[in-house]
């Protein structure tokens, strides 16, 4: 850029204000995150009294011990990993080929298909009619109810289509056709290997969606043993019900350590927040580039 011309005093003041604004934004977002990490390894007494407000006080790992002793949380964790893995695979298997087909300008009927898909973004049947369809398919209380109704999201489909449109040169496809290459071979052998970034973006977007969703489980699952992690978290964090296991663990080996039920509750809360969010937050800084890329591709067109 142009830095040859000296900045005026007004510009300097403006820039200082910009930095102050950004620093304020940083603090406001960072503080609750740091606080939760600190609270999860501090003695509940200090946390609840407000003595612990930034750095951990009275270091303890009891919260994590209680979380790891809780069978419900483990089951939820296992379920979520299973649902996320299978769900994301299905998402990719359906979204990528469809997006590729829609990206081809010689694909007859693609405008019609695109309109049919876009309509669903702005008008839908609503909660009960969808519930009835899922019920008629016999999916209630099965993991497929959490996976199949969200097989494709329109946004991700558009992002993937835009990527294919802008990165796969038409000449490549024409050359492949002249050489007698079928569309299937073209897609599997040439297009997919060129599309590693979009596959990563899609897997991440869909993966986070499955990991964080609770509402589908709330409406479609009755059986607690099938609950994903977020539903277990809802019981602990929102409905404030501890698993019976936690209380047992408390009465057996930790009764002396924890003064009251409330203290245990608060200990478990922070630890469980960290444990459940960690996988996503831990991988996120390394994959940030891909996430951002995904949003940017989507914003170029559409």
């Amino acid at each position, binding site marked *: 850029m142009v830095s040859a011309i000296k900045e005026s005093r007004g510009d300097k003041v403006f820039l200082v204000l910009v930095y102050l604004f950004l620093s304020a934004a940083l603090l406001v977002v960072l503080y609750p995150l740091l606080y939760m990490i600190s609270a999860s390894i501090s003695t509940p007494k200090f946390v609840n009294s407000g003595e612990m407000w930034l750095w951990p006080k009275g270091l303890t790992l009891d919260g994590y011990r209680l979380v790891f002793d809780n069978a419900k949380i483990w089951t939820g964790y296992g379920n979520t990993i299973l649902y996320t893995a299978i769900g994301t695979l299905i998402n990719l298997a359906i979204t990528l080929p469809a997006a590729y087909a829609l990206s081809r300008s010689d694909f007859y009927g693609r405008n019609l298909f695109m309109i049919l898909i876009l309509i669903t973004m702005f008008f839908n049947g*609503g909660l009960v009619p969808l519930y009835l369809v899922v019920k008629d*398919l016999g999916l209630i209380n099965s993991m497929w109810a959490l996976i199949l109704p969200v097989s*494709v999201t329109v946004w991700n489909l558009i992002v993937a289509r835009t990527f294919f449109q802008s990165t796969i040169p038409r000449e490549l496809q024409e050359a492949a056709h002249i050489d007698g290459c079928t569309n299937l071979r073209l897609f599997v052998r040439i297009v997919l290997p060129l599309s590693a970034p979009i596959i990563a973006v899609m897997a991440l977007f869909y993966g986070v969606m499955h990991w964080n969703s609770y509402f589908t489980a709330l409406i479609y699952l009755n059986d607690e043993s099938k609950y994903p992690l977020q539903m277990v978290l809802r019981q602990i*964090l929102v409905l404030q019900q501890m698993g019976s296991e936690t209380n047992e663990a408390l009465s057996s080996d930790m009764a002396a350590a924890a003064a009251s039920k409330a203290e245990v509750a608060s200990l478990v809360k922070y630890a469980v927040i960290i444990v459940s*969010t960690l996988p996503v937050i831990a991988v996120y800084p390394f994959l940030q580039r891909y996430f951002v890329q995904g949003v940017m591709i989507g914003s170029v067109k559409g």
Partner: protein
Amino acid sequence: MKASVPAQASPESATTRSHPKRNSPQPGRKRNQWRRRIMHNWELYLFIAPCLLYFFVFHYLPMYGIQIAFKNFLPTKGITGSEWIGFDHFERFFNSYYFWDLLWNTFSISLYELAVGFPLPIILALAFNEVKDGLFKRGVQTVTYAPHFISLVVMAGMIITFLSPSSGILIRMLEGIGIDTPAFLEDPRWFKTVYVVSGVWQSTGWGTIIYLAALAGVDPQLHEAAIVDGASRLRRVLHINLPTIVPTISILLILNVGNMLSVGYEKILLLQNSLNMESSDVIATFVYRTGLVNNQLSFSTAVGLFNSVINAILLVTLNRIAKRTGNSLW
């Protein structure tokens, strides 16, 4: 959407472009040409088949099910077998004592969220754009994007914990500077603020990305010319950067307003309790409660349909207004 523009190329050009080796099609053989075009790429129809099947089953079949809003739906009789009753469910809803409360809560939460939550990412993105690339900028970006990945359940848990009257850190802090704290989650007057502020905390950073992408497209020559003319930084932000992202702002605004009545009910549902109900109950949570908790399937569908129709009307109206400025969706 604008995305499908290239597809509107005329059939001739599409054919010649994709089959350069073939002779140009002769007139009067349109039908053959059609079949050839479909057969040529028959595999692409297999590629898109699962996707279309998905949209048919989970989006269009439910639309067929909307008819139960006008029926007295009995699961034993099925959707087609149930008896038509016209607009009874709608009348019941419009005449109910909670109708205006639901409508007011839904609109006021949406508007509140829009008024506070919509401009902030724009301001933050403009600020990011003024700062040199480096550790500071990347650090702030990484941190402010992070809350986007926190699940709604954890978010609700954080809100409840931070605002707990007995031990919440936010309560402690406000007390520390001498502010009398209301019971944020029990007092209906505070529910909307809690909802909106927590939403701002979670999504402002992530919301900047789309604007930053648009800002990357600003022509540097405009800035150079403005500097030569003696324009200050602030003026350049207001008169060069901001106008560049106006199309993006306009499109996002349309989309947001079009989704006005589908406020984040998944989050509201988590924060709702019997004490804040009078200001936290929105149409979508009502639809969930009456339909899937209290099992009034037809009535709930009617309320949901009312919601969807208003949404669609808002979207179309806003798009029509935006069309005049040339920034419409379609």
